[in-house]
């Protein structure tokens, strides 16, 4: 957990209002693992006090990649940063995805839930695990990371309006009925809930919540556990084993 000014070295609009930022730093990148997130300052932090949690979509020793939708004032401010400028980042935070050692992983992502799964896919493939992915979007113009994921394994795209791939939600995808060892899912609660309730295989879900501190100190992001008690999404998660949390 380091606070560092990362330098924006590459910037690309990968879908409508969705930006891919490649950032350089000396400390944060090397600590990044799939499923963890960065707490990113928006603007100069004077009018917007709270950092924005954004998942890590790739990382190596010197660079880290995030992919995010510019959907509000904060993410728009972040999207307006120019190449060569720095971004104030605190991280990496949270507990990431547990790794598989063998078998087949099914990755299920909705919208901006897809970015962390790409990082996971890369690492799984490095581990010798086979990877299949279901990624869901609103419509054809919103699709991103499809090509990159296809390099790593089979991919099924769903769109709500059917303008590309399978029509419907990720839960309508054919791949969900294929064989796999473990699933990993990231997206809105409405997507995770049916997955947690209906999937037979073991798996992990990655959650979102509005956050204050990002390190477990403010109790903004609690989520009830099924068996009583609670977890903090920022520090105990955002990734939880299937069946642990109430969705």
């Amino acid at each position, binding site marked *: 957990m380091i606070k560092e000014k990362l330098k924006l070295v590459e910037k690309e609009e990968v879908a409508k209002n969705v930006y891919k930022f490649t950032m350089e730093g000396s400390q944060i990148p090397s600590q990044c693992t799939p499923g963890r997130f960065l707490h990113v*300052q928006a603007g100069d932090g004077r009018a917007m*006090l*709270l*950092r924005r949690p954004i998942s890590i979509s790739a990382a190596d020793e010197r660079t880290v990649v995030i992919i995010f939708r510019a959907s509000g004032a904060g993410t728009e401010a972040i999207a307006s940063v120019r190449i060569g400028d720095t971004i104030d980042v*605190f991280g990496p935070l949270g507990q990431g995805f547990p790794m598989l050692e063998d078998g087949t992983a099914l990755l299920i992502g909705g919208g901006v839930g897809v970015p962390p799964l790409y990082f996971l896919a890369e690492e799984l493939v490095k581990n010798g695990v086979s990877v299949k992915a279901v990624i869901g979007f609103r419509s054809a113009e919103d699709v991103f990371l499809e090509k990159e994921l296809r390099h790593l394994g089979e991919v099924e795209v769903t769109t709500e309006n059917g303008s590309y791939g399978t029509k419907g939600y990720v839960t309508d995808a054919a791949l969900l009925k294929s064989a796999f060892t473990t699933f990993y899912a990231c997206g809105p609660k409405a997507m995770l809930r049916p997955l947690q309730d209906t999937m037979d295989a073991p798996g992990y879900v990655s959650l979102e919540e509005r956050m204050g501190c990002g390190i477990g*100190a*403010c*109790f903004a992001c*609690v989520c009830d556990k099924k068996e009583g008690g609670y977890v903090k999404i920022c*520090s105990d998660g955002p990734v939880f084993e299937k069946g642990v949390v109430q969705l």
Partner: protein
Amino acid sequence: MSRLKTVLPGLDMKNPVMPASGCFAFGAEFADLYDLSLLGAAAVKAATPEPRRGNPVPRVAETDSGMLNAIGLQNPGAKAIKADHLNHCGQAGIPVLANIAGTSIDDYCEAASVMADAPEVGALELNISCPNVKEGGIQFGNDPELAAEVTRAVCNISNKPVYVKLSPNTGDISAIAKSVEKAGASGLSMINTLIGMRLDTETGKPILANKTGGLSGPAVKPVAIRMIYEVSQQTDLPIIGMGGISSVEDIIDFFSAGASAVAVGTANFQNPFICPELIEQLDEWLARRQIAHVSDLTGRSWKSCGVPSL
């Protein structure tokens, strides 16, 4: 850093800077980031007699230069706090300012008697102002009689000094301050959060599940400064100032207004390293201007002599 050493009732501090209650939990998370012994003290999360689950999420929302929170005093209960959560501050050797909340005078007394007994605790901070809990809090903070009553009751059972944390959601904060002074308080903490609300523009509904929340951050600093300016001239109690502190200049302003120590809340979320950073900057700020001791600044906004005008 001898110019920073600050001794207030129950709080023997190497400097006058502490994290504010609710923004630091009990220190475990921050102990991973820096050496807690750098802090002057630590105001820890509110303790209630029984464990509390708090409010449904969302519990926070951003506003211009501020934020709203409606955590709902989630905490494991006074006994568990005393048994399991004070060790980080204890090991660092910094005094704990134990925040106490409740929904009745008995509640307050019960939590207070447990917390006052903990050896790590230097003083109690009576949260009579938390605006998030429907049945309690708010009425104590907006009524001089009730505020005095709960203060008197807690002072009676506590063997540690009691600071009363005042609510800004009142028309006459000096009346409350004077009333709790008479009732036996050893100090004041001010200010707690202003009641506020943010709506989702598209749906028109409140963003916080609790609907209203407490407003904190730089947006409220002018309100805090004015209240401390006023109250510090009306009582003799030392004041722990807070509300929007995020720079060393803010700390100076709170001292000038009348504070004898300060607490940093919301700013910990933007920069978790801010407390030790501000402590160092405070020492430099005073050194550069050759001010012998930080307490020389207390109340210089209204004192007419005997203090450095710089």
